[in-house]
């Protein structure tokens, strides 16, 4: 049997398998870049507004604390990398095979990979942003604190990397049926 999905007409599975795998793939890729950039932007504005506010009285902190903004930007770059990897996994299959079990699985794999990367980068960007904002505020008071809080920020940015690693491993599951 070629793996055609056969389900009972009255189960929730019947509704799920009728959604094209391209829907899931498209939303997955869009989430991987869109929600990652959302996390990066959230982090940038939390850090940026605190940094600029603290720098009114202590303008010396500006150039050093831009590194927190760069950590948040790296989160968006993780999202771009995974989105580009996922779109190379996207293949067009003949419509006779579009609802096969194998192509449904490929669609779900791309969707899951996108969600993994997107939401991991969302929380990573948020984390790095909040830490960066405290880093700027404390650096304005006492410049010895900058390096110590930067170490905490490095731990926070590892969260995004975890998401990227798992997302890339998941994307290897996205094999579409060949003709």
């Amino acid at each position, binding site marked *: 049997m070629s793996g055609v999905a056969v389900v009972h007409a009255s189960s929730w599975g019947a509704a799920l398998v009728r959604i094209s795998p391209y829907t899931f793939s498209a939303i997955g890729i869009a989430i991987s870049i869109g929600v990652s950039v959302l996390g990066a932007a959230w982090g940038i504005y939390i850090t940026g507004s605190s940094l600029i506010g603290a720098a009114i009285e202590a303008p010396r902190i500006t150039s050093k604390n831009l590194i927190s903004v760069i950590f948040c930007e790296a989160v968006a770059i993780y999202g771009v990398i995974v989105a580009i990897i996922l779109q190379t996994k996207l293949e067009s299959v003949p*419509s006779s095979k579009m609802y096969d079990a194998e192509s449904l699985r490929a669609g779900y794999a791309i969707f899951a990979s996108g969600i993994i990367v997107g939401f991991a980068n969302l929380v990573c960007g948020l984390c790095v942003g909040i830490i960066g904002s405290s880093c700027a505020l404390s650096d304005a008071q006492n410049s010895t604190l900058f390096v110590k809080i930067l170490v905490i920020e490095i731990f926070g940015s590892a969260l995004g990397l975890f998401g990227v690693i798992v997302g890339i491993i998941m994307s290897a599951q996205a094999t579409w049926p060949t003709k």
Partner: protein
Amino acid sequence: PESAEMSTFSGDETAPFFGFLGAAAALVFSCKSFDSLLRFPDFVSLILCVSVVLMFCILCCFPDVVEFTVEIGMGAAYGTAKSGVGVASMGVMRPELVMKSIVPVVMAGVLGIYGLIIAVIISTGINPKAKSYYLFDGYAHLSSGLACGLAGLSAGMAIGIVGDAGVRANAQQPKLFVGMILILIFAEALALYGLIVGIILSSRAGQSRAE
């Protein structure tokens, strides 16, 4: 209960209809004023924007190819509004700094241009008379638009809030102008990443080999 085999309905015929419907809705939404959203705390309006758009796309289960322009419009509007309020408040005390502080407003407007680029690329790509437009193409366009749109929305929020804080701080401490511009450039780059991924994805749309 009897089992049901998959029907051969592919949905290809409906792809352009929803694409153009999405373009019309996008224009209406991006022109509509979102001032009411700004009265809520930032994260609430963000969740509202994102959930409205995602709900719209997922409920359709069909490509809604230019719906993303809603998000880019929201991003540009938020950025312009939020930093504009900062400029206005700051300008009361330091009117000579107003023209210098227009920079965040301009950067937020550039996001609209990114959305326009992707919209033109997508809508010239929907031409079923010249080239068959399959479901794969429709979803590639949807993904391209959503990627660019969500990125533009987020970048617009970042530009707005950083611009607001920046112009107010610049009025009190002139040394901060360069720092504000640097942070705004990082925020603008986020929308650029979305544009790049959007262009790459929409170039996949012509590669469908359905039969």
